[in-house]
C-alpha cells in the first residue's frame, strides 16, 4: 500500500506550508460526499493522529488515515496547470467512475 507524489506537487506543498507558517505536512484521504459516493480530502496537518500512516516523499510528509488508504493505494498526487487554473490532481488507479462535476468518485 503506497501513494506517491510528483516532484512538482511536492514543491507546491512545501511552498504552501512555508507560506502558512505552520503544519507538519499534507493529509490526503477520502470522505463520503458529493453525488457519486466518495470525495478526496486534501488538508494541512498540524497534528498527526496515532493511527495515521506517514510517508516522506521528496522532503514532504504525507499523512493518510488507515481507512482511506485502500481507496488511495497506487495514487499519484500531481500538481498541474489547466488554462488559468492550477491545482492538485489525484491520479487514482482504483477509480471506476466519477460524477459529472468531478467532485466525487466510486471505486
Amino acid at each position, binding site marked *: 500500500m503506497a501513494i506517491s507524489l510528483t516532484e512538482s506537487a511536492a514543491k507546491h506543498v512545501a511552498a504552501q506550508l512555508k507560506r502558512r507558517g505552520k503544519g507538519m505536512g499534507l493529509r490526503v484521504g477520502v470522505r463520503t460526499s458529493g453525488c457519486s459516493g466518495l470525495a*478526496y480530502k486534501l488538508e*494541512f496537518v498540524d497534528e498527526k493522529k496515532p493511527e495515521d500512516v506517514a510517508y516522506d516523499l521528496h522532503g514532504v510528509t504525507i499523512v493518510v488515515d488507515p481507512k482511506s488508504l485502500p481507496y488511495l493505494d497506487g495514487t499519484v498526487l500531481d500538481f498541474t496547470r489547466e488554462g488559468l487554473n492550477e491545482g*492538485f*490532481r*489525484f491520479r487514482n488507479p482504483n477509480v471506476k467512475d466519477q460524477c459529472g462535476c468531478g467532485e466525487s468518485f466510486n471505486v
Partner: protein
Amino acid sequence: MTLMQIAEPDEAPAARLRRRAVGIDLGTTNSLVATVRDDGIAYVIPDDEGRPLVPSIVHYGEGATLVGYDAAPRQSPDPQNTIVSVKRMMGRGLADLTDDRRFPYRFVDGPGMVRLATRAGTKSPVEVSADILRALRERAERRLGGPIDAAVVTVPAYFDDAQRQATKDAAKLAGLPVLRLLNEPTAAAVAYGLDHGIEGTYAVFDLGGGTFDISILKLTRGVFEVLATNGDSALGGDDFDHRVFCWILEAARVPPPSPEDARLLLLRSREAKEMLTGHDAAPIVATLSTGQRIDLSLTAANFSTITRTLVEKTLAPVRRALRDAGLRPDALQGVVLVGGATRMREIRRAVAEFFGQPPLTNLNPDEVVALGAANQANALAGNRERGEDWLLLDVIPLSLGLETMGGLAEKIVPRNSTIPVTRAQEFTTWRDGQTAMAVHVVQGERERVADCRSLARFELRGIPPMAAGAARIRVTFQVDADGLLSVSAREQTTGVEASVTVKPSYGLGDDEIARMLQESFDHAADDMAARSLAESRVEAEAVVNATESALAVDGDLLSADERGAIDDAVAAARHACGREDTAAVRLAVESLNRATAAFAARRMDRGVARALAGRTVDSLA
C-alpha cells in the same frame, strides 16, 4: 476531475468526540431541560439552587426580561407584562382563543398569530417561548461547558403544523439547533422503555398543565411504534385550578375580581390542588386588593365533586384512541402517567379503574418527557454506541388529503400513518383542454372539504391541452419526521411541477382537532350520503359536458325530434343536480345515456366513414 487546493484541517470531530445534546420539554406550566450523562443515564439539569423546573413564565420588566422563578412573583402585581401559559397561544389567531377571558393580556391581532402588547413592545407567542427556551439553553450550556450541538423539543401529539412550526421557530430564535420535534407521550415512552426495558403495549396518559394526550404505544425490542393518539388540546391541570378558582369565588361570594386578584386566587387554587394530592383538606387564605379576606378550607371530597366532569372528560379521548388501535382497555400491559396533573388522586383512581390496573409512576411525571427527549437527542447527535440504534415511529393525528371534484376530500395520507411518510396518487384533468389544476390541501376525517380544515392551496399550470382524463398528474404528500407537510404536483408527460410546503396557517381553533375527530365519528353516515350525492353530481356534469360538445360537432346527425329528446334529457339531468337526491341524479344520468345511445352510434359510424373516406381497399391492407 477538478483540480484541488489544500484546505485547512477540519479539527472539530477529533477535538471533541461527545456532542452536547439536550432534550427540552416546553410545557404550558413548567419547562425542563435534560441531558444524558456519559454512562447513558438521563437527568434533568437543575438551576444553581437545585430546582429542576423552570416555570413557563416570562416577565417583561423595566429594561430586563425575567424568566421562570424570577418572573413568577410578578404575576399578581403586573399580570399584563407577565406571560403565563403561552403554549396555548402558539400558532393561534385571536379568534381561536375562545377562552381569552381567562388571559389577562392585551391582545393584538396580528397576521396569522395573536400578539401581546407588553412593556417591552409587541411580542408574539413565538418570541415569548423563545425567551423560555433561551433560559433553558443557557442553563444547559453552563452545565455542559459549551454551546449545545443538538436539541430535541417536545410538543403535544395533537399540535398541528402551525403549532409545530411555531415551536421550531421559537427554538431557532433561542439559538437552539433543533434536530427534531418529538411528541410528548412518545418521549415518555422513550424514557420508560429505555430505562426499564419493558416490552408490550402501553398507554401513555399525559395530563399536563394545558394539554391532555393519550397515546397507545407498542414497544418491542427497543422499537417504539405509536398505534394511536388522541387527546384534548385544551384540557389540563390549569382547568382544575380554574374549577377551584370558581369554587372560591362562589364560596366566598367574591365579586368579579381584578386581573391581579384573579391571578392571586388562581395561584392559591393551584396550591390547594397540589396539597390535596397528599392531604384530605387544604386551606385557602388570601387578602384581595379590595380588602376582602378569604379564609376557606377545600376538602378532598369537595375537590373530587367539582372536578368530576374534568376527570370524565379525559376518558372520552382514551376510549377513542383504544378504538383506533383496535384494543380493549384490559389488553394493555401498563399505563404510564405523565404530567404533574397526574399526581391528583382523582386522576390515578379514574385511570386505574378504567384500565383495571394501577398506573406506572416510577419516574417523576414532571420529568419523564424531558428525559425521553434527552435520550432521543443523544441518539440523534450520534453519541450512542454502535448496536444501540433504535427506531422511533410517530403518527400523524389527522388524515391529509386534497379536494377533488364536487367538493370531496380525497385522503392521501390516512391518519395514524407513521412518519416520516411519503404517499403519492395520480389525478387527471376533468375538462377537455384543461391547462391548470388547483390543488387544495386539506386535513381532517370528514368526507366533504367544507367539513375539513384547509391547509394550503396552489395551482399547477402549464398542463398541455388534452382530452379530459388524459393528463396524468402525480400528487405527492410528504410528511417529515417533525410532522411538517410538503405537497407537490407533477404532470407526468411534460414534467411541469408545482409544490407547497405547508406554511404555518396560524388560525385553527384550539379544540378544533379534537372536535374534527369527534365529528367524523358522529357524522359518518351523513358523510357517506354527501359523498354519494357529490359523486353522482360530478358524473352528471361530466355526461352533460360530453353530450354538449358532441352536439356542437355532430348535431346535424339528429332529426329535430331526436334533438329535442336529448335536449330534454340534458335539462332533466341539470335539474336533478340542483336537488339533494342521489337517486334522482343517477336516474337522470341513466336516461340521458339512453337518449344519446343512438346518437353515439351514428357519431361512431361517421367517424369511421371519415377515416376511410378517399381510401382504397389496397391502401388499407
